[in-house]
């Protein structure tokens, strides 16, 4: 008897086809891993299952009956709980208040909250799950791992029979992961079906029974976790072997353009040194939260470093604000285009010229409309930005085209060093190939490029040199010929404590 069965699920967002014929099934007491590259549609599928998104078409059976949840609340009451990657807790409330939010027990004819019963119920629930947390503790004071336990308890307080976990171990250390797995096994024993989304291959072997792979929103296949090799699963995820088609530069890298020495900035940038050459693409690999974005932000002056030196073209630069970085010829393309890269409500032209407005000022201080329009149109042609005109608002463009607008902004400024932070996040496959080509072209034209990416195939395909980070430190540097996914993962998980032991 299947607990969940989803078939032929289609879902599109403006500009992106997220799911096209996805399917998935789950048995009671099973841990079923859902795998795929970023943007493969895993989270979308799970959000549809949990009633957060509505599907465009397809059918979902739960316990044998067709269901169509109107919202997350309905799905939760039916027994499908989801634990998001970013925990959804109210930090100022206690554990018990969080668990029973919206369902608080009342007394005095429903006029007053019954805090005693609230805490009693929470206590019983936590004890039942073997979670040793006092329900009166304020959630904000707990570690992330414990907060996650609270989320799980909250989901199970609805008597959930299906629990969806989206990258639950992303922020946990090894001991905490072991504790989480113990809990998952216990839930499994009680017949709860668990859908487990993760990028970490080694975890699957430990915890999953079956694995379903999605690629570009389509169903690829379902295999047995114990008997299938990791290589097979990776092969299913990436389809064609992307890592083979390396994009190699036309020229050998030139002189060092950017040299960063002993940079320190908060807990995630610790004694970081690296250099980039003219015409080179330097790949920055690592797990989420390894500190790669923080390094880029520190070099760019978006966060103020505590110590360290930055040399551009052999000259020491004091970079304290993004303005200084831009003057020194460094550009930064954020991983979160919408929040940090674009003024979404403004048009393509305004975004393209934003970092370089002084070039378009007349002597009297007026903006010169004609040159701005020409610049925007030049980049629209050059980067093949699909937009009806330069006057189109950026928010109406697709992810890939928005990314190109950000690229255009920095090209207009003519920077020598460009940091690309997750340049293909949220972009579909066709547009990705274009962005790759663009990066290589820019390098061939003499730019020094730093590419931060969590997608290993992308790192392997693009980089002339690979730097791997873990917990704020650079744990290794690899030449492309030495680099494999396994070797990178090994460096990316080389924790300081483990190294000392």
């Amino acid at each position, binding site marked *: 008897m299947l607990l969940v069965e989803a078939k032929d699920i289609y879902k599109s967002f403006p500009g992106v086809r997220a799911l096209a014929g996805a399917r998935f099934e789950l048995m009671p007491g099973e841990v079923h891993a859902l795998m795929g590259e970023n943007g493969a549609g895993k989270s979308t599928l799970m959000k549809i299952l949990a009633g957060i998104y509505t599907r465009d078409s397809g059918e979902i059976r739960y316990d044998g009956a067709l269901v169509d949840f109107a919202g997350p609340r309905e799905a939760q009451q039916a027994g499908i709980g989801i634990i998001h990657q970013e925990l959804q807790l109210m930090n100022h409330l206690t554990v018990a208040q969080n668990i029973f939010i919206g369902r608080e027990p009342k007394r005095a004819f429903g006029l007053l909250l019954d805090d005693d019963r609230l805490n009693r119920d929470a206590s019983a629930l936590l004890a039942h799950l073997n979670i040793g947390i006092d329900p009166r503790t304020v959630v904000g004071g707990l570690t992330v791992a414990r907060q996650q336990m609270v989320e799980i308890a909250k989901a199970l307080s609805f008597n959930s029979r299906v629990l969806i976990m989206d990258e639950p171990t992303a922020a946990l250390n090894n001991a905490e992961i072991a504790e989480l797995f113990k809990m998952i096994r216990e839930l499994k024993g009680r017949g709860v079906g668990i859908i487990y989304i993760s990028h970490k291959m080694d975890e699957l072997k430990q915890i999953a029974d079956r694995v379903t792979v999605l690629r570009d929103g389509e169903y690829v296949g379902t295999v047995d976790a114990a008997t299938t090799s990791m290589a097979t699963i990776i092969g299913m995820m990436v389809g064609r072997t992307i890592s083979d088609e390396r994009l190699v530069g036309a020229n050998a890298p030139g002189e060092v353009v950017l040299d960063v020495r002993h940079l320190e900035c908060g807990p995630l940038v610790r004694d970081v040194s690296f250099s980039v050459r003219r015409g080179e693409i330097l790949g920055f690999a690592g797990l989420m939260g390894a500190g790669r974005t923080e390094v880029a932000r520190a070099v760019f002056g978006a966060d103020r470093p505590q110590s360290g030196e930055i040399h551009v073209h052999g000259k020491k630069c004091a970079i304290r604000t993004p303005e200084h*970085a831009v003057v020194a010829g460094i550009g930064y393309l954020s991983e979160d285009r919408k929040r*940090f890269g674009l*003024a*979404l409500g403004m048009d393509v032209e305004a975004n393209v010229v*934003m970092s370089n407005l002084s070039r378009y000022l007349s002597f009297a201080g*007026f903006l010169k409309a004609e040159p701005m329009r020409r610049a925007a149109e030049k980049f629209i042609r050059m980067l093949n930005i699909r937009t009806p005109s330069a006057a189109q608002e950026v928010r109406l463009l*697709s992810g890939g085209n928005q990314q190109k607008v950000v690229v255009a902004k920095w090209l207009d400024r003519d920077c020598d060093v460009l940091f690309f932070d997750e340049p293909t996040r949220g972009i579909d496959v*066709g547009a990705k190939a274009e962005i790759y080509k663009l990066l290589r072209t820019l390098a061939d034209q003499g730019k020094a490029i730093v590419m931060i990416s969590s997608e290993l195939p992308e790192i392997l395909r693009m980089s002339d040199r690979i730097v791997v980070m873990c917990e704020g430190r650079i744990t290794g540097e690899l030449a492309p010929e030495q680099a494999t996914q396994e070797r990178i993962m090994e460096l990316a998980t080389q924790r300081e404590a483990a190294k000392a032991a």
Partner: protein
Amino acid sequence: MSEAATTQKSPAAPRLRALLAPAALQKLLAFASLVLLLIYFSIASPAFMQTDNMINILQATAVNGVLAIASTFVIITAGIDLSVGTLMTFCAVIAGVVLTFWGLPMWIGLIAALAAGALCGAVSGTLVAKAKIPPFIATLGMMLLLKGLSLVISRDKPIYFNDTPGFTSISQESLLGEFVPSLPIPNAAMILFIVAILASIVLNRTALGRYTFAIGSNEEAVRLSGVNVDRWKIAIYSLGGGICGLAGLLLASRINSAQPALGQGYELDAIAAVVIGGTSLSGGAGTILGTIIGAFIMSVLTNGLRIMSVAQEWQFAVTGIIIILAVFADMLRRKRT
């Protein structure tokens, strides 16, 4: 192909969309409301369309309109300036000190008032940009501070400009009427129109204007583009302050005195005019034309209701309803996009 589909439509489509865009629609809506108000009041009361009354409306709109223009800049950056009213008074008092207490020539008084405004704006801007104090709090503080300073400097008494001949003509006389007797538009209103045109040019055609919108649209993205956001913010608040100084001169000239107790409450009228004119309080969008229309709606409403002998308490109530309706229209617009 999927991504091309959403963005590539026939070339006529964007133009049509722009015309029917809720933003444009709302501006038309505001303008239509103003016209309707004018028609309604002129039918309801014969006294309304009299030349004298029209001049009254223009005079009243001038001060609030100039203040609203100052507020428009700050509000487009997703900020707010609560100090515009008392800053206006403060600048008038400064002019009074320079002209009446010290007896200096008129042009020095004018420059002193404008400079005081810009300086106070710069202080607010610095508090917001550098000290990261939320604009609401920073300018609330400035509002009370300036109110107090005005009373202290003026020794709690109105300062009259009787010793400065020509000062009252800034607002009251009509230069245009000298040349075109059929159009006795007071100087104050002409100054409002000139300021509006200049402000519109600054907002749409200079780097300062561009960054005003960009900061309101996505401040962090602008900062990460290598733009010195702090400096521009200070510049924007300073510009707003300077314009408040001008409003102070207009008011002082109109009533031939600097009234230190006046001013508080004007900031809310200014914000109301800005909002009615379609500028979004969440920043990134707005026009000077809209603000001017908003200012006229406010003053026509006040004037018309008064002429119809509607009790003052009901005047307040009606104005309140108009503001809520305007913001509601703004919310609807944002929900649709």
